[in-house]
């Protein structure tokens, strides 16, 4: 069952915002609700922001009222440098519990839960396997507060899985994320003039690009993939190799013994190396990413390409650092754009901010019907040349259908009627027979059938 009514927790975080943006452009998604106690940090078009923390009673009301079928939890803090450990615990453990409570219960409408976790789950120890796969638990008890939080949060999700048999639960464990926009302790470390290392250690590192993180979240939201998946790009690099790819020297500034002491001295000097990163700098970590690949996900970049992309961005960054005012959420403006009857859409091709999806669909239908009527006239005037085609004319209402690429066709499907969809399917199967388009049409048909049927009691 594809997700149509989605709730994203942690909308103000980098991942929440990126995911909401990505889902907005998908016409199969009817409703996106984002909750957080802080305001969104990116400009969103049709996502509805609800300012609510993780109080489960309020969340539950939001979930039930909007008939949410999918909850994507992007809120987990996995970098202890970003916040205090008390706040991280509050967010990671208590927050997860509350969100799960809001989704559970026999009468809950939630059919899918996607939980964003981290490969910090596995830790980083001397006797680790070279590649952790999803079946391996953590071989040693957690050493740092953040790892303890991640383990607790995941075990809460596992418990939810066992008590809510109707929900599909997916946990994604992400490796260290790099990219031009995301800020982590590791991007901080790599932007130093030299890459710090522990003397005598060259740990193995696996990364994932920020775009792949968003795509992976999207992928599991749109497919039914129960279980745990590691998300890490192909290729495990040695840290010295990473330094080489970034074009920087590496500096073994941390002594192999008394590393914690040296790290706390560096912390005074303003170089924050959180404890979980210190373990990684010593022993490194590799994970087996094959399970998600077997589930149909395709990574855009390998670890090496991710690092190279970061290096290129860091060289360009000082030149670009001017201009653009950061986005600020203004409640009244957003309300006006979404609700006011006076807002007109700029162009129907764009997903208009002021119109609901149904209204846009209606407009599109009218316009398309008008266009196709004209197209039929044109064809009559030209004389029927294309008699060899299995169907004489492209079925209404998609005009100049043959000139459109699959990527252009798919967003239009949401606005078509059932009969039009059937006709279009026949037409496509007879001519270009593109699998992606056919699958998208089938999906649109299935959704239409489901929405026409009265909701099950």
């Amino acid at each position, binding site marked *: 069952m594809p997700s149509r009514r989605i709730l994203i927790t942690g909308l103000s975080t980098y991942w929440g915002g990126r995911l909401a943006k990505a889902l907005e452009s998908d016409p199969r998604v009817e409703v996106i609700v984002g909750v957080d106690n802080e305001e969104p940090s990116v400009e969103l078009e049709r996502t509805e922001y609800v300012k609510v923390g993780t109080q489960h009673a309020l969340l539950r009301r939001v979930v039930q009222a909007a008939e949410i079928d999918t909850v994507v939890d992007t809120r987990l803090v996995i970098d202890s440098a970003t916040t205090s450990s008390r706040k991280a615990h509050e967010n990671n453990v208590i927050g997860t519990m509350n969100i799960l409570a809001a989704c559970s219960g026999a009468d809950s409408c939630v059919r899918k839960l996607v939980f964003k976790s981290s490969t910090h789950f596995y830790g980083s120890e*001397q*006797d*680790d*396997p*070279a*590649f952790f*796969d*999803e*079946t*391996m*638990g953590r071989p040693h008890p957690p050493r740092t507060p953040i790892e303890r939080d991640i383990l607790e949060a995941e*075990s809460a*999700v*596992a*418990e939810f*899985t*066992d008590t809510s*048999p109707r929900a599909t*639960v997916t*946990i994604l464990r992400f490796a260290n994320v790099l990219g031009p926009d995301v800020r982590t302790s590791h991007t901080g470390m790599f932007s130093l003039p030299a890459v710090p290392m*522990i*003397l*005598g*250690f*060259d740990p*193995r590192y696996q990364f994932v690009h920020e775009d792949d993180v968003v795509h992976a979240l999207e992928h599991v939201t749109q497919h039914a993939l*129960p*279980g*745990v998946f590691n998300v890490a790009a*192909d*290729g*495990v*690099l*040695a840290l010295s*190799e990473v330094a080489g790819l970034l074009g920087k020297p590496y500096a073994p500034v941390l002594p*192999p013994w008394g590393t914690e002491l040296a790290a706390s001295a560096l912390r005074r000097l303003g170089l924050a190396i959180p404890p979980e990163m210190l373990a990684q700098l*010593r*022993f490194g970590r*590799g994970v*087996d*990413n*094959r*399970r998600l*690949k*077997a589930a149909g996900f395709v990574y855009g970049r*390998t670890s*090496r390409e991710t690092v190279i992309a970061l290096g290129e961005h860091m060289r360009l960054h000082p030149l670009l650092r001017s201009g653009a005012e950061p986005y600020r959420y203004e409640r009244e403006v957003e309300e006006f754009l979404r609700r006011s009857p006076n807002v007109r859409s700029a162009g129907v091709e764009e997903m208009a901010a002021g119109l609901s999806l149904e209204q846009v669909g209606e407009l599109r239908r009218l316009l398309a019907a008008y266009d196709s009527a004209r197209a039929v006239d044109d064809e009559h005037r030209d004389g029927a040349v294309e008699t060899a085609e299995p169907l004489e004319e492209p079925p209404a209402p998609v005009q100049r259908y043959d000139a459109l690429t699959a990527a252009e066709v798919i967003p239009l499907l949401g606005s078509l009627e059932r009969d039009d969809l059937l006709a279009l399917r026949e037409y496509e199967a007879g001519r270009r027979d593109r699998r992606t388009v056919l699958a998208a049409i089938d999906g649109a048909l299935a959704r239409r059938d489901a929405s026409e049927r009265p909701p099950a009691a």
Partner: protein
Amino acid sequence: MAESARTPLSPRERRSSNQGAQSRLAVLADEDLRDHLSAVEPARTLTDWGRSERVEGLMDRTLVEFLYRYWFRAEVEGIDNVPSAGGALLVSNHSGALPPDATMIGKAIREEHRRPRPLNITVEHFFKGYPGFSTLLPKIGCVAAHPANVHRLLYDEDQLVLVFPEGRKGTEKLYKDRYRLRRFGRGGFVEAAMRARVPIVPVCVVGAEEAAPVFAQLGLLRRLTGLLYVPLTPTFPHLGPLGMLSYLPAKFKLRFLEPIVFDDPEAHSDKSLVQSTAHEVRARIQENLFEMVSKRESVWLG
């Protein structure tokens, strides 16, 4: 130096034991993911295991070449028993401080085999935690002796893996006990081969015991340095750390024995079969070692 049997949980047991709470989140144990291995990136000089073409090649052309050809004058028998395709688990006797036997076996396969293949040498987890070793060993083809690592190399990546089932007990043993095999762990190496459905190739090495004889173990120095063991050899520790590398020029003889093949894919769950196979492998290596030593006329000339 190495031993695959020490680490207590095999991958299969791990699946069942500590994922109890995650029953519905668990993964199919036998999902075959071999088609989804990452592609090799030609621009890289390191593999995903951290093995470095550059460092290994450099060592191979200089130090290892010198030791193999001129210092130890290695002589190889039965190299065709190493399969030229697919995974195989090589099992050898083990001896000497900073043992030269593993590198010599690897070099023999590169030099004499009709299809030279890289050899993955399993080492104790200890080395991953010791500065210096931690950087160098993966670069020259050593991997930690974790059952999951061995399985991935043998089953998923079709590689050659060398294990020393004697492990530390082999390298710690003194000169007076030479060529007498220690206990072969708990048979974990047999289980690994059976699970991965690859043959076991027993290997006998004669000469390593005399090249780096150990007269005593220095307990105090071991505790001070935090190393696994600190042996007393003809050159170590009085000549400093380099004394570790100064081997005596004993003649090396390597013999690769007939592979042992397993037909039944479920054989690894039969504990008694695992144990008896481990005993058999040990007996065959021991028997051949005694024969090779008895035929040897001189320690130095062979």
